[in-house]
C-alpha cells in the first residue's frame, strides 16, 4: 500500500465508545506511521480533548452511547472553532444508510466509512480525502481566514477549468454567496448544478436562495421536492416549516416540524423551534414535549438555553389549575423541579431568576400552595426592585398577576400602576396591561393613569420642543435628561434625551461625558422592534451620534 502522504506529524483523534474497536482503529492508524493518536470514549471527552489540541484528523463513530453523538460532536466542534474547514472529520457508521445526515448539512463530515471496514479501506479513504482537502486547501484557508472574496476567485478558477474539484468548488461558492447575502448569484450557482442533476445540496441551496429573496412559495416548492425525493433530509423540513410560517400557515409549519423532529429527535435547535412555534399556536401539549426534549438535550449541547426550561414550565402551567387532579399535580411538580434546577444552575443571572421565581409563584398558586406562592413572589419582587429599568416587561406583568392570584391585591395594584407609568407608551403591551388592570380591579383608574401619563409626556415634549426652537439647548438637555432618569423605560424620552445631547454637541462641540450619556440613552432603546414606528428615529440618532463621535 503506497501512502503518498506523511502522517508521522499529523494529530489524530479517535472517538469510539466500543473499546476493542477503538483499539482496532488506533492500530490501523498507527500502521500509517502516525505518532500522535488520542482517543476519546464519548462526546464530552472528545470536546474536551479538542479544546486542548487542534487535530488534523478526527475519526468518530456516529453512535457514542449516552450523550452526544458523532454528528453533535462535529457541530459543537465547528461551533467552537475546534474543528476548522481544514480539519478532516470522518464519521464511522454502523448503519451505512446514515448518508444523508440527520442534522444540518451545514456541518457535514468530510466522509463516511461504513463498518465493517478493513485497514486498507481506511487508509485508502484517508488518502483520498487528504488529497481532496489538499486541492481545496488554499480555498479553505481563505475561508477560515474570513477572506471570502479571495476564496471565490479561486473557486471560479477551478470551476472554469472543470477540474476534479469543480463540483466541490461550486458548493463552496454557493455557500459563500448565501453568506454574503448575494442571493441572486447563489441562485444562479445552484440552478446551474441542478441543470445537470437534481443534486440534494443544490436543491437545498436554491430553496434557501429563494427564501432569502422572500419568494416563499417558490422556495417551499423546492423544499417539498427535496422531501419527496428523500424523506430523510431533515434540513428540508426545517426550511419548509420556515416557508409555511412566512406564508401565514403556522399550523402546517408546526406539523412539518413535528415530522422532522420524529426523524431526528436529537437536534436541540429543532426542538426549540418546534416548541416556540407550538406555543404561538397554543398547542401546549406539543410545546411541552418539545421543550422537555430541549431541556434534556441541553445537558449535552452548546446550544442549550435557560429559556427552554422557562418555556417548558410555561407549557406545563396550562395544566396546573386548581381542579386539574393528578395530571395537574404531576405537571406542577415537574415545573417546580425544572425551576429548582434552573435556579441552582444560574445563581447570578438576576433577570432569569426573576422570571423563574415568578413562574414558581404561578405554579404554587396553581397547586393551591398559597404560602409558598407568596414566598416566591416576594423573592421575585425584591429582584424586580433591584433590577429597576432592566426588568423585562412581561416578567413584571406576570408578577403583578401573580400577586393578585394569591390574594395580595394591593401589592398587585401598586405594581400595576408602576408598570403603566413605565410602559404606557408601548403599544404592544397595551392590551396585556389593560387586562392586568382589569384583573386588579383598577381598570378605570388605569385608563385615567394612561391618559394622565400621556398628557404629561405630551407637555414634556412640548416644553422641550419649545426650548429647541428658542435655541435653549442647555434647558432642553436638562429637561429631557431628568425625564429620562425618572422614566428610564420610556422609549421616546430616551430618544429625546439623546437627541437633545446630540443637538447640543453639534452646536457646542463634542464632549466625552455627554457622548457617554447619550450612548446610554440610545442603548436603553436598543431592543426596539424593527417594525416599531420609532425604530427609524432610533437608527437616525445612532448615525448622528456616530458623526459627532467622528467629528473633530
Amino acid at each position: 500500500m503506497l501512502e503518498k502522504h506523511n502522517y508521522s506529524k499529523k494529530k489524530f483523534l479517535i472517538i469510539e465508545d466500543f473499546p476493542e474497536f477503538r483499539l482496532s482503529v488506533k492500530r490501523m492508524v498507527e500502521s500509517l506511521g502516525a505518532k500522535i493518536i488520542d482517543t476519546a470514549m464519548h462526546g464530552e471527552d472528545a470536546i474536551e480533548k479538542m479544546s486542548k489540541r487542534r487535530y488534523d484528523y478526527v475519526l468518530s463513530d456516529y453512535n457514542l452511547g449516552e450523550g452526544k453523538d458523532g454528528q453533535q460532536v462535529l457541530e459543537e466542534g465547528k461551533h467552537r472553532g475546534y474543528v476548522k474547514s481544514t480539519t478532516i472529520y470522518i464519521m464511522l457508521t454502523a448503519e451505512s444508510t446514515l448518508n444523508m445526515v440527520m442534522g444540518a448539512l451545514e456541518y457535514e463530515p468530510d466522509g463516511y466509512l461504513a463498518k465493517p471496514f478493513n485497514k486498507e479501506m481506511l487508509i485508502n479513504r484517508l488518502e483520498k480525502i487528504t488529497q481532496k482537502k489538499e486541492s481545496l486547501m488554499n480555498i479553505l484557508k481563505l475561508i477560515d481566514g474570513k477572506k471570502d472574496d479571495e476564496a471565490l476567485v479561486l473557486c471560479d478558477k477551478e470551476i472554469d477549468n472543470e477540474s476534479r474539484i469543480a463540483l466541490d468548488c461550486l458548493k463552496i461558492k454557493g455557500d459563500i454567496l448565501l453568506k454574503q447575502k448575494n442571493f441572486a448569484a447563489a441562485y444562479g450557482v445552484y440552478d446551474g448544478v441542478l441543470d445537470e442533476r437534481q443534486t440534494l445540496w443544490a436543491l437545498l441551496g436554491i430553496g434557501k436562495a429563494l427564501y432569502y429573496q422572500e419568494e416563499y412559495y417558490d422556495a417551499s416548492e423546492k423544499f417539498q421536492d427535496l422531501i419527496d425525493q428523500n424523506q430523510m433530509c431533515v434540513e428540508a423540513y426545517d426550511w419548509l416549516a420556515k416557508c409555511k410560517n412566512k406564508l401565514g400557515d403556522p399550523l402546517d409549519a408546526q406539523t412539518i416540524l413535528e415530522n422532522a423532529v420524529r426523524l431526528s429527535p436529537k437536534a436541540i435547535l429543532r426542538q426549540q423551534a418546534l416548541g416556540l412555534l407550538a406555543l404561538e399556536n397554543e398547542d401546549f401539549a406539543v410545546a411541552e414535549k418539545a421543550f422537555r426534549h430541549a431541556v434534556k438535550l441541553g445537558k449535552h449541547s452548546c446550544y442549550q438555553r435557560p429559556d427552554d426550561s422557562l418555556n417548558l414550565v410555561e407549557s406545563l402551567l396550562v395544566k396546573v389549575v386548581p381542579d386539574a387532579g393528578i395530571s395537574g399535580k404531576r405537571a406542577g411538580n415537574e415545573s417546580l423541579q425544572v425551576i429548582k434546577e434552573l435556579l441552582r444552575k444560574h445563581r447570578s443571572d438576576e433577570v432569569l431568576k426573576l422570571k423563574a421565581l415568578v413562574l414558581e409563584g404561578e405554579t404554587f398558586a396553581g397547586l393551591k400552595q398559597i404560602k409558598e406562592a407568596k414566598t416566591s413572589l416576594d423573592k421575585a419582587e425584591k429582584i424586580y426592585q433591584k433590577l429597576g429599568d432592566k426588568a423585562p416587561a412581561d416578567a413584571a406583568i406576570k408578577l403583578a398577576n401573580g400577586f393578585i392570584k394569591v390574594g395580595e391585591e394591593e401589592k398587585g395594584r401598586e405594581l400595576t400602576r408602576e408598570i403603566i407609568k413605565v410602559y404606557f407608551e408601548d403599544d404592544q403591551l397595551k392590551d396585556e396591561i389593560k387586562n392586568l388592570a382589569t384583573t386588579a380591579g383598577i381598570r378605570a383608574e388605569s385608563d385615567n393613569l394612561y391618559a394622565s401619563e400621556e398628557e404629561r409626556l405630551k407637555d414634556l415634549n412640548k416644553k422641550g420642543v419649545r426650548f429647541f426652537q428658542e435655541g435653549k439647548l442647555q434647558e432642553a438637555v436638562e429637561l429631557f435628561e431628568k425625564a429620562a432618569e425618572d422614566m428610564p423605560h420610556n422609549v421616546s424620552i430616551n430618544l429625546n434625551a439623546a437627541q437633545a445631547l446630540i443637538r447640543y454637541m453639534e452646536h457646542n462641540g463634542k464632549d466625552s461625558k455627554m457622548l457617554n450619556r447619550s450612548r446610554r440613552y440610545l442603548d436603553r432603546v436598543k431592543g426596539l422592534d424593527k417594525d416599531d414606528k420609532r425604530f427609524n428615529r432610533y437608527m437616525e440618532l445612532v448615525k448622528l451620534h456616530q458623526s459627532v463621535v467622528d467629528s473633530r
Partner: protein
Amino acid sequence: MVARKLTASSFQAILASSVHDMKNSLSMLLNTFDEIASDYHPQDGNKNQRISNLQYQASRVNNDLMKLLSLYKIENDQYPLNIAKHAVADFLEEQFLRFSAIASGKGITLDVVCDEDLWWYFDASLLAGVVNDAVGNATHYCNKAIRLSAKTHDGYLLVSIEDDGEGFPEFMLDAGASAKKGIDFTSGSTGLGLYFCSIVAKMHSHEGRYGYVELDNAGELKGGRFLIYLP
C-alpha cells in the same frame, strides 16, 4: 395543503441499536481475522484458506444484514437516498480493497477495469451493497478470476462483475430475467441479493429512465456476468 403526519415506530429504534451492536461485533470479527491472517505466512495455503473462509462467511452475514436493513428502510420510505457525483474508479477501488484479502486467501485474482476520468451520479452506499453482493456471488461461482469493471453504455453507467467459472445456472438466469421485469421470484440468499440489487437499480432514475439489472453468461471471462445499469 395540509401536511401529512408521519408515524413513528419504536421497533425502528430497537432495530437501529441492534444493528449498531451487530455491526460492531461483525467488525471486530473481521478485523480480528485480518490480524490473524497477517500473522500467517502466505505460503501456508491451508490455514490461509480457512481464515479466508471465516472472513468470507462473516462478510456474507454482514452483507445480508446490510441488505435487509436497507430494504426495510426503503420499504418504509425511510432510506436517506443520497445520489451524488462520484469518481467511479475510486469507488471500485474501495470495493476491491474490501475483497482483496478474502480473494487472495482463496487464490482468486481480483481485477478492476475503469477509466480514471469516469464520474457518475449514484448512491455510493447502495451501489457498494450491490457490488458486495455480486462479488460475493462471483467468489462462489468462479474458478480463479473475478473482474470488476465500469463504463458508459447508451447513456447508462454499466458496472459489471464477471467471473471465470462455469457460468450461472438456469435458475439464476431465470431469476435475473424476472428481476429485470420486476416480477417476484426466488427465495433465500439469492433471492435477497437479486431483489436488493434490482431495487437499488430502480431507485436510480434520471430524465424518465430507470436503472436495471441483468445476469448472463456472456462475459469475456467465460463465466457468469452480473450487470447493473444506472441512468
